């Protein structure tokens, strides 16, 4: 596609449920990043993929968070046993080589 696509655009779920967030990067972009944007905290890095490997997972807040990337393309961020503090906008970005990152519009996650 022309840009980074994320789905769903909105997700409301109950505390304790698992959620999966999907990112389709720009075609041909080998680097993929996940960030979280919350009020008062701004944007925070979660994880970096180069191809299907994740050499930097340092931003994942707990072991309830995991991510994978397959075929050097689509990535899924999974949050298990969701908590209210997980409510945020989850943003995905992709880039090619040394070029800057381009972002999707995010998934707005609300935990009730």
């Amino acid at each position: 596609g022309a840009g980074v696509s994320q789905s769903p655009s909105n997700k409301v779920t109950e505390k304790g449920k698992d959620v999966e967030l999907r990112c389709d990067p720009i075609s041909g972009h080998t680097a993929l990043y996940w960030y979280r944007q919350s009020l008062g905290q701004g944007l925070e890095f979660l994880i970096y993929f180069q191809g299907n490997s994740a050499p930097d997972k340092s931003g994942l807040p707990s072991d309830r968070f995991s991510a994978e990337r397959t075929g050097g393309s689509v990535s899924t961020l999974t949050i298990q046993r969701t908590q209210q503090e997980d409510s945020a906008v989850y943003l995905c970005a992709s880039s090619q080589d040394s070029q800057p990152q381009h972002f999707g519009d995010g998934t707005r996650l609300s935990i009730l």
Partner: protein
Amino acid sequence: QKEVEQDPGPLSVPEGAIVSLNCTYSNSAFQYFMWYRQYSRKGPELLMYTYSSGNKEDGRFTAQVDKSSKYISLFIRDSQPSDSATYLCAMSGLGAGNNRKLIWGLGTSLAVNP
């Protein structure tokens, strides 16, 4: 103290004004500096990208980087109501495996009034 500091505003200016936005940072390893614009309920949109120190101009936008002072700026000339948005500065070093994870300011909310 955050690695990147940015005044959240809000900043309100009349149409046609020159807008000055800035960020300071503490990590001398940062080499890549970006400004993104974010409209409500949208993802960040890249405006300007600068490597190391210097100036860069693109239309009504000028980005400046002063690594000696750890200070970056974005100037918007002839501001328009459509420029009303949140402006985010972001920066990165070069990590292992070509990792360029971005460290962000909190964003400055700008309103340009007709």
